[in-house]
């Protein structure tokens, strides 16, 4: 089966510009996650969707970050405006669980490496 797809793979922008990332989860997976991974650190959960509803966005910087999952399938993560500290890899993952159970195995995409100059 196809894995989690993300695009673009790399993005370089100037600070204060806007950027958007796209994620296509594994077909049939109800739960979708966005993580931010700064170099040398572990992934930090930004937002978790179950179908098209938000389960957890407690660590999402809502003044500049936004995410949506229209129709409960694809998702986009946007940063507006970007800051230097947003330079990181943005990982998308999906899991099968309908109940948003944290026992569900997460399948990760390859990530988008963002550099903010």
């Amino acid at each position: 089966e196809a894995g989690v797809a993300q695009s673009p793979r790399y993005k370089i922008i100037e600070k204060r510009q806007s950027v958007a990332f796209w994620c296509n989860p594994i077909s049939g997976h109800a739960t979708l996650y966005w993580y931010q991974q700064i170099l040398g650190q572990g992934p930090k959960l930004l937002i978790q969707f179950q179908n098209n509803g938000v389960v957890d966005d407690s660590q999402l910087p809502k003044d500049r970050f936004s995410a949506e999952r229209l129709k409960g399938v694809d998702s986009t993560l946007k940063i507006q405006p970007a800051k230097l500290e947003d330079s990181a890899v943005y990982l998308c993952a999906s899991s099968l669980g309908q109940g948003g159970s944290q026992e569900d195995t997460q399948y990760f995409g390859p990530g988008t490496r963002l550099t903010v100059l």
Partner: protein
Amino acid sequence: SQQGEEDPQALSIQEGENATMNCSYKTSINNLQWYRQNSGRGLVHLILIRSNEREKHSGRLRVTLDTSKKSSSLLITASRAADTASYFCATDYHMRFGAGTRLTVKP
């Protein structure tokens, strides 16, 4: 703050040796998961251990969990060069990851 904290930060061994890395966490959990991340790639799920389990095996992997000490360990036996990667633990509480253990297996 991060929920899972891995130790050591880096580990270098020879092929064929065993590698042990540890994870500590702060709050009560329902389960704890271990993931591997190869350089420049996404994370791959390795194993999940529930709070009522003490030990779990999967191939060359052995995971233990001590809820009284809020700690877990991952043992990789008979390591291979392909095991070179960063290893992370994450608890079910908001899926918080630690900084990981960077394992290097020298051929």
